[in-house]
């Protein structure tokens, strides 16, 4: 059997495969290239597999060959077997990513080798490592061009896996402003306090619309996201939440039950040294700067 004959066969198989992007079986090949011996077929297929042009699947008992997409073929060009295995695992995981431990278990590669493979793939910009937001140490790998899933990236609150606290802060304030605008409706409402309270409530959807209209957010905020923010207001003690009969959550801005108490009006109440301040010694009320500054006002 000559080299050229071999090449012809592979060429033909490739052509068939190109026409059938869903994959081809042994039978399809046999039908397309009549007179091909099974031995020849096996060598050709093996060769193609070796070159990494084909993926091989098991479908209903028979083997299916499928041509790899151009990009991925390119990506692993010149890669060795280990890289391919790892690559495939990572590709499979999609935009959820895959944890290094899982790769190791499933690929059966030794730790050091695996790290090397991952490094090389990373340097080729084929894959990337993404930090999980809910487990800071955990890194997952995914294909370079993929957008990480919400559960990994943390959604709207994260930029490059960093928590955007300022953004949250601004939203928090804006939400509060919105709620405060209608908070007074409950006071002396001529139609009674229940109507008044209803008027002072805002549903999460309303708040979401307000925030979207403000245009302060580049990313699209879902109602869920806004609820998270509104909940921080509840924890801040600046709003209370309730549930409408139809199950939607509503929020109302409230004030603290008491005015700032005396303790926080005197410097000692906020003084970091209060537990070290004694009648004698270095820190005494008579010598205290905070006190004298406060009294100077």
């Amino acid at each position, binding site marked *: 059997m000559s080299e050229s004959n071999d090449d012809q066969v592979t060429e033909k198989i490739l052509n068939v495969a190109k026409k059938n992007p869903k994959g081809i079986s042994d039978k399809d090949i046999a039908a397309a290239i009549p007179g091909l011996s099974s031995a020849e077929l096996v060598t050709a297929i093996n060769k193609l597999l070796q070159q990494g042009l084909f993926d091989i699947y098991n479908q209903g008992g028979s083997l299916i060959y499928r041509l790899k997409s151009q990009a991925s073929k390119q990506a692993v060009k010149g890669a060795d077997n280990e890289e391919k295995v790892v690559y495939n695992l990572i590709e499979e995981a999609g935009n959820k990513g895959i944890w290094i431990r899982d790769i190791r278990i499933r690929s059966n590669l030794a730790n050091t080798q695996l790290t090397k493979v991952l490094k090389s793939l990373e340097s080729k910009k084929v894959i990337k490592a993404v930090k999980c937001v*809910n487990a*800071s140490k955990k890194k997952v790998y995914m294909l370079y061009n993929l957008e990480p899933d919400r559960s990994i990236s943390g959604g709207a*609150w994260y930029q490059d896996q960093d*928590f955007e*606290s300022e953004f*949250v802060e601004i939203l*928090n304030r804006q939400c509060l402003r919105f709620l405060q605008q209608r908070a007074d409706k*409950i*006071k*002396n*409402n*001529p139609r*009674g*306090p*229940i109507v008044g*309270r209803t008027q002072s409530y805002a549903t999460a959807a309303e708040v979401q619309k307000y925030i979207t209209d403000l245009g302060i957010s580049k990313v699209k905020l879902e109602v869920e996201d806004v609820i*998270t*923010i509104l*909940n*921080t207001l509840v*924890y*801040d*003690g600046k709003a*209370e939440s*309730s549930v409408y009969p139809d199950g939607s959550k509503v929020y*109302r801005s*409230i*004030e*603290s*039950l*008491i005015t*700032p*108490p*005396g*303790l*926080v*009006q*005197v410097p*000692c*109440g*906020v003084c970091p040294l*209060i537990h070290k*301040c004694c*009648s004698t010694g270095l820190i005494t*009320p*008579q010598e*205290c700067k905070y*006190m004298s500054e*406060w*009294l100077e006002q």
Partner: protein
Amino acid sequence: MSHQLGRIVSQILHRYFGEIVQNVGYDLFIYGSKSINMIVKTTGLPRTRIVDSLRTLLKFDLATFESTDVFVNYKLLPENILLLIRYPRYLLQMKSKYGSEAEMLVEELLQQASCSATVLIVTVMNKYKDDKEKNINMINLKDTFISLVTAGYIQQAPVAELNEGSEAPILVPVETKVPELDLRDLMQAMANNLADVKDNTYWKVNYDRFHLDFRDDLMIKAITRRIDENAGELMRLLLEQMYLTMAPWAAESCPVPAVELRESARRLADRPLLQQHVDQYLRVIEESGGEFVRRCGDAGGGQYAVCARRAAERLLEALLDHCVTERLGSKAHRIFRLIRSKKYIEEEDIQKNAMLPNKECKELTYKLLEEHFISVQPMRKAASAGGTAKAIYLYHVKIHEVAHTVREMCYRALHNVISVGAHMRQSHARLLDKQRRVRSIVHGMRVRGEPQDNIDDVLETLTPPELAAVSAAEAKLRTLAAAEIELDRALFILTCYFAYPR
């Protein structure tokens, strides 16, 4: 009994009664209960002075005694000593509720600790009879006295009874009866010597009655802040109804039927909205009123109970919230409230819910921990395979403990404020004294109608820099006094909370 309490108590005693009483009081505070001989030993003061001090303390209800077979042991009442700084508030309350006659009466009674009605009224009368502005008369004073007794602000003092075979008397509380005061007797007493008056019923101020007023005020204000004035008014009505049936400090009142509330709301002519919507207001208070009120039945158009204990808790929480915010910032406050609302929570969940960056959140959590606002409860998982069981740390808020922490802080702050005040008074003593003297001289000259030139001469003995220094010091002292009262208000919220047993 904490060290801080001891500091503040001894300082207050010093301010009002001087050094010896302070020493005796502090000695009692430290040892709990003690006999005179023991006090002599530890303080090294002459016995007569100690007896005098004890007499003062007993007179103002700042200490008690109990007799064993051999000794009489004395015991300090620190809570009552703290009340001394609340006096201005009592007076203010009287003035705004019953007018200045009541204020004068209560002021005099507080100073005397206890005295008979005749003596009280006559003394007040004598004191102010030359004061044209006040323009008081006997009839008014007498009526005010009677209405104060009726309202419970003044009560009969306990009488001392001697048991047989024992030398120490015991104080027996007596039920207060509204007295009949005869105007003619009063007039006569005024004309004659007070010492001859035969009036053996003694009276004293009932602090608790004032405290109820303060508590109600807090609750009404809170509801007003949450909802509106009408709701606050309704809260007042609810509390009024509560007093009719229950012990005032009960944790929860008897159910009050809505019908009665509607009835009493009808009498409030200036609140048309409330009259119209009593039921709605009740519902809103119940649902959005910080759990002050609970609906507990449907009979008679709904029945509502006032949960005074829960209210005290809510108010305390509001106080703690303010403290945390001011001390550690609003983000720490968010974490604090988050932990409180979730009861027990893991560190990771705190971050997720509070929407704070990892690092900052941790830092604040540990700060809260350090200042004893939250506590942590490690939980070992049942030893899992490999013995690598990691403990989970659950954060939570022990309200009672935090309240203690904050109370200590209040004591400290109060102590500091008072001592700064004392220090300032001392260092400006000469100037303040001089100013006082100049004032009294000028007053005397004005009364005698001396020429303005002479008055100016006297006034000029205070040089401008001196004047400036004095007025600056006075302004500072005023700030400090105001701070004292405010701190006492904070303490009051804390005491309210501790008044209900857990």
